[in-house]
């Protein structure tokens, strides 16, 4: 009983951690540009597939190059890191293609919702072209996870090791990002641009570079999330990231647009609430997520930790 509950809570916290990663990705870009990057879900998918390939996985029969794989088999943490960097690099490309041209022309920022959605669709379709529509399970031997025990004994309860890893890695990423924003020179510059880009410019901050950095980090967070989910569940197909992207969006609004602690708390609330739904009723999971969102927004229109719209002077 206790064991089941503990496993449930940990599962919830683990997927909550991944939701928080996705929501933080949105948060970074929303803070500096005031817009949502709808390619985030596609970058999540990309991260999953890149992790698979860097672990030494082969392309399946429906892919463009059946049986082909990278001539490497990296340990799982390195594969995750490289895949996250890859997703970050593509995130930068999305900025170049879908955001920068609009900004240069002084276009309505809302238009980037469409251009980024377009970039995401193209990316997912490229993935489908290369990898096929089939699902992939991560190669077990190459993952470097093989010599880890399948489950751990925590407080008398057996817990799947991969869930513990998932939680630990997303917690590390979230903590690292928060510390970086709080203490580093570039993190402070990002906070300044988030609040007032013109002021930041007058203080000598290159706000264009800060925006690019936000896209890089945001893509890395999405890619990391995709790699983690691929590892703990599997890759269900090129679209698998889209549902995480949507869930992250719900978490973003739940926690409060633009709030870093809000994205973290929102992610955990969402993950735990879902995990508490019994397996027989799992079809209700997504409905529950959006019911929570609805309830919170009725009670607190600015989200759990969002700023109330008072301080606009």
């Amino acid at each position: 009983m206790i064991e089941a509950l503990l496993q449930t809570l940990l599962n919830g916290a683990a997927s909550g951690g991944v939701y928080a990663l996705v929501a933080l990705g949105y948060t970074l870009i929303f803070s500096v540009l005031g817009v949502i990057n709808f390619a985030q879900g596609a970058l999540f998918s990309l991260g999953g597939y890149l992790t698979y390939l860097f672990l030494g996985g082969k392309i399946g029969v429906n892919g463009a190059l059946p049986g082909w794989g990278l001539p490497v088999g990296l340990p799982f943490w390195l594969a995750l890191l490289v895949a996250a960097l890859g997703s970050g690099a593509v995130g930068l490309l999305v900025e170049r293609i879908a955001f920068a041209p609009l900004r240069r022309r002084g276009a309505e920022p809302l238009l980037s919702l469409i251009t980024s959605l377009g970039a995401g669709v193209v990316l997912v379709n490229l993935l489908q072209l290369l990898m096929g529509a089939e699902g992939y399970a991560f190669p077990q031997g190459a993952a470097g996870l093989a010599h880890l025990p399948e489950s751990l004994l925590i407080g008398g309860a057996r817990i799947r090791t991969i869930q513990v890893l998932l939680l630990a890695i997303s917690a590390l990423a979230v903590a690292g990002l928060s510390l970086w924003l709080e203490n580093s020179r570039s993190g402070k510059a990002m906070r300044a641009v988030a609040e007032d880009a013109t002021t930041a410019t007058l203080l000598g901050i290159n706000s264009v570079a800060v925006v690019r950095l936000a896209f890089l980090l945001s893509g890395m967070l999405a890619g990391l999330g995709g790699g983690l989910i691929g590892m703990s569940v599997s890759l269900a197909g090129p679209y698998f990231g889209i549902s995480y992207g949507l869930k992250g969006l719900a978490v973003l609004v739940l926690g409060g647009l633009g709030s870093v602690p809000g994205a973290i708390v929102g992610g955990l609330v969402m993950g735990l609430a879902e995990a508490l739904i019994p397996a027989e009723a799992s079809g209700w999971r997504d409905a529950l997520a959006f019911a929570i969102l609805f309830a919170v927004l009725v009670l607190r229109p600015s989200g759990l930790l969002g700023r109330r719209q008072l301080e606009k002077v």
Partner: protein
Amino acid sequence: MSSRIAPQAATQPLLQIERLQVHYGSVQALAGVSLQVHRGELVTLLGSNGAGKSTTLRAISRLEPASGGRILWHGANLAAVPAHRTLKLGIGHCPEGRRLLNRQSVAFNLELGAYLRRDREAIAADLERCYGLFPRLAERRQQQAGALSGGEQQMLAIARALMGRPELLMLDEPSLGLAPKLVAEVMTVLAELHANGQTILLVEQNAQAALEIADRGYVLEAGRIQLQDNATALLRNPQLKAAYLGG
């Protein structure tokens, strides 16, 4: 902040603006403005609302592109300099409406003022100097900037600009919205900075207060310089008296 361009003749102005034009779309905001600021001077740019004062400062900071004329800094054209480089060159801009980072603390705002500097000890010394200049900021250093009173916010905006150690300090209507006593306080601080050698370009609608501390002044009207003279002469100028000095 040392400048990389060697000063030539002693007569060369620090800042020289020649027939500057700025357009917002098809609307002309500046129609050929020329002015100079020499090292160590306190120059004021006066004019009523919409005259183009802020636009002039924004053009110098490269926030607005010039559509004609040129801006010379130490004799070199600023046309190709991006906005985030102007402070590095020595041009500090305390913008209209203060533009503080309202959600951040007083201390964070000041720290960001010194964003480009790496000389930690000198930064710490300047921070203490700012707190000495504005003791009320020292008491509130951990408070959110947005929670300060209007006067304190203006002090913070000036202090933040000083933290960048600009060779030229440009201020856009620092007296705006302040009670007369606070206006006097701000002007006293600017006069002190000027006495210590700080070069200042002060944009104001409050002509009386600005001219009392300035060396020279320009009067801008509808994007053109209408008058320019020594501050004492401008204070006695009948035209200016009628228009701005309430009598």
